[in-house]
C-alpha cells in the first residue's frame, strides 16, 4: 500500500504550487519586501526626528536659516540648492524607468545609455550632498553655547544675522591647541574656535548695534531677539564656549540634536544613493557585456530600478521633513 501522501487536495488551485499567484518573479518580490523593511527603517529615523522636534517644538532651528547656500553665489538663498538636488534625483529616476522600459523591448543600446545617465545623476546627487555637508559642518556665523547647552546667535538691530568675525577681534592667545606629541599622548582635542568667550564679550560691549538672538521661537514663527541689556547679561553670565559650524557634539544652528539627525538621516540616505550607484555600475557593465541579452530578459535592470526609485522615494520624504516642514 502506498503510505506516502502525494495528494494534497490543492492541485490546480491558486496555492497548489507550480504557479505564481502574485504574477511576479521571486527576485522582484524579494526586492519589494526588502524595500518595505528599509522603508520602515527610514520611517523609524524620521519618526525619531519628529519625536525630538516635538520635544523641542518651540526652539527647533528653522531650516530656511540653516540651508541657505548655493555654490558660487554668496547671498543667502534657501531652498534653491535642495530643490536642484531633488530634481536631479527625480530626473535620474526617470532615466532609470526609461532603461527598464527599453529593457522590456530588448533594446540593449538604449538600456546602456539610460543606465549611464542614471549613474551620472546619482553621482551629481551624492556630490551635492557632500557639498551640503561641507557647508553645514563649516558653519557661517558662529554662536555662543551657554552653560545649559542653549545656543545664542548674534543679529544687528534690523534682525539680520551678524557673524562673529564682523564684531569680534581675535587677540593673542596663551592657550594653543593640544597635540598628542606635546603632552598626554592619549588625550585628543579638536581644533580650537577662532575666538574665546572673553573676546566675544569684549566685541559685544564695543558694538552697541549687536544683539543676541535666542533659540526660542516667538508667536510670529521667528527666533526671539533680546534687548541690549539682556543680551549683555546673557552673554556675560551664561556663556560657556564659542561654537563655529556643526558636528555631533555642538551645533551653531541650535540644538545639537538637529545636527545629529541631519548627519544620521541624510548620511544613511546618501549611503543608499552611493550603494545604488555602485549596483547600477555593476548592472551597467553587465548590460554592456550582453549578460541580459543572452539571458533573454532585462529583469535585473528592473530590480535595481526598484531599489533606485526607492532611494528617490525616501529623498522626497527627507526633503519634506528636513527642509520644508
Amino acid at each position, binding site marked *: 500500500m502506498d503510505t506516502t501522501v502525494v495528494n494534497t487536495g490543492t492541485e490546480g488551485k491558486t496555492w497548489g504550487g507550480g504557479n505564481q499567484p502574485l504574477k511576479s518573479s521571486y527576485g522582484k518580490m524579494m526586492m519589494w519586501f526588502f524595500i518595505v523593511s528599509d522603508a520602515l527603517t527610514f520611517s523609524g529615523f524620521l519618526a525619531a526626528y519628529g519625536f525630538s522636534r516635538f520635544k523641542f517644538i518651540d526652539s527647533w532651528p528653522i531650516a530656511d536659516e540653516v540651508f541657505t547656500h548655493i555654490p558660487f553665489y554668496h547671498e543667502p538663498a534657501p531652498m534653491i540648492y535642495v530643490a536642484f538636488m531633488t530634481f536631479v534625483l527625480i530626473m535620474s529616476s526617470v532615466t532609470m524607468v526609461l532603461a527598464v522600459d527599453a529593457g522590456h523591448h530588448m533594446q540593449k543600446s538604449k538600456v546602456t545609455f539610460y543606465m549611464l545617465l542614471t549613474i551620472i545623476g546619482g553621482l551629481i546627487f551624492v556630490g551635492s550632498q557632500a557639498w551640503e555637508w561641507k557647508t553645514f559642518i563649516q558653519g557661517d556665523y558662529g554662536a555662543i553655547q551657554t552653560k545649559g547647552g542653549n545656543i545664542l546667535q548674534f543679529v544687528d538691530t534690523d534682525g539680520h544675522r551678524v557673524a562673529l568675525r564682523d564684531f569680534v577681534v581675535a587677540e593673542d592667545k596663551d592657550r594653543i591647541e593640544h597635540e598628542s606629541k606635546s603632552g598626554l599622548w592619549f588625550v585628543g582635542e579638536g581644533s580650537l574656535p577662532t575666538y574665546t568667550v572673553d573676546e566675544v564679550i569684549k566685541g559685544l560691549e564695543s558694538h552697541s548695534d549687536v544683539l543676541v538672538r535666542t533659540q526660542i521661537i516667538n508667536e510670529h514663527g521667528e527666533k526671539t531677539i533680546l534687548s541690549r541689556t539682556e543680551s549683555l547679561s546673557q552673554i556675560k553670565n551664561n556663556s560657556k564656549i564659542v561654537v563655529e559650524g556643526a558636528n555631533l557634539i555642538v551645533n551653531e544652528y541650535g540644538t545639537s540634536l538637529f545636527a545629529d539627525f541631519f548627519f544620521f538621516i541624510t548620511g544613511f540616505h546618501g549611503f543608499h544613493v552611493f550603494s545604488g550607484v555602485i549596483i547600477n555600475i555593476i548592472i551597467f557593465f553587465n548590460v554592456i557585456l550582453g549578460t541580459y541579452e543572452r539571458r533573454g530578459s532585462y529583469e535585473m535592470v528592473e530590480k535595481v530600478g*526598484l531599489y533606485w526609485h526607492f532611494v528617490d522615494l525616501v529623498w522626497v520624504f527627507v526633503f519634506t521633513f528636513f527642509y520644508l516642514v
Partner: protein
Amino acid sequence: MADAHKLEILRGLVKFKSNTQKIWGVLILLTIITTVEVVFGIYKPEALMGNLLGMKILNWIFIILTLVKAYYITWDFMHMRDETAALRRMVVWTAVFLICYLIYILLQEGGYVFDVYKDGFIKRDF
C-alpha cells in the same frame, strides 16, 4: 510589443499612448508638485500659517503633496500600478499601517516630553 502597462494617471483624466510617454507625463507632474512646494517654502504665504490640528496649514499641504509624489513614484516608476492587487496590498498596507502606528506613538510622546519641560519640572533656560 503590446504594453501590459496601464497608461492612465489621475483616475483616467490623462491618458498616454505609450509607457515612455507616461513616464515623461509623470515627470512633469512631479516637477510641478516640487515647484509648488519650493515656491510655498520660499514665500510662506501668510494665509497658510494658521493652525490646523496641531500643525500649520502649510505643513499639512507639504505633507499631502509629499504623499502624492510618493504615490506617483511608487505607482508609475516602480510599476505598482501593474502588479497584482495582492502584491500591492502586501507592500502598501503593511508599510502604511506600521508607519502610521510608529509616527503616532513617537509624536505623541514627543509632545508629552515638551509639556513636561514647559511646565517647569525641568529647567533648561540657563
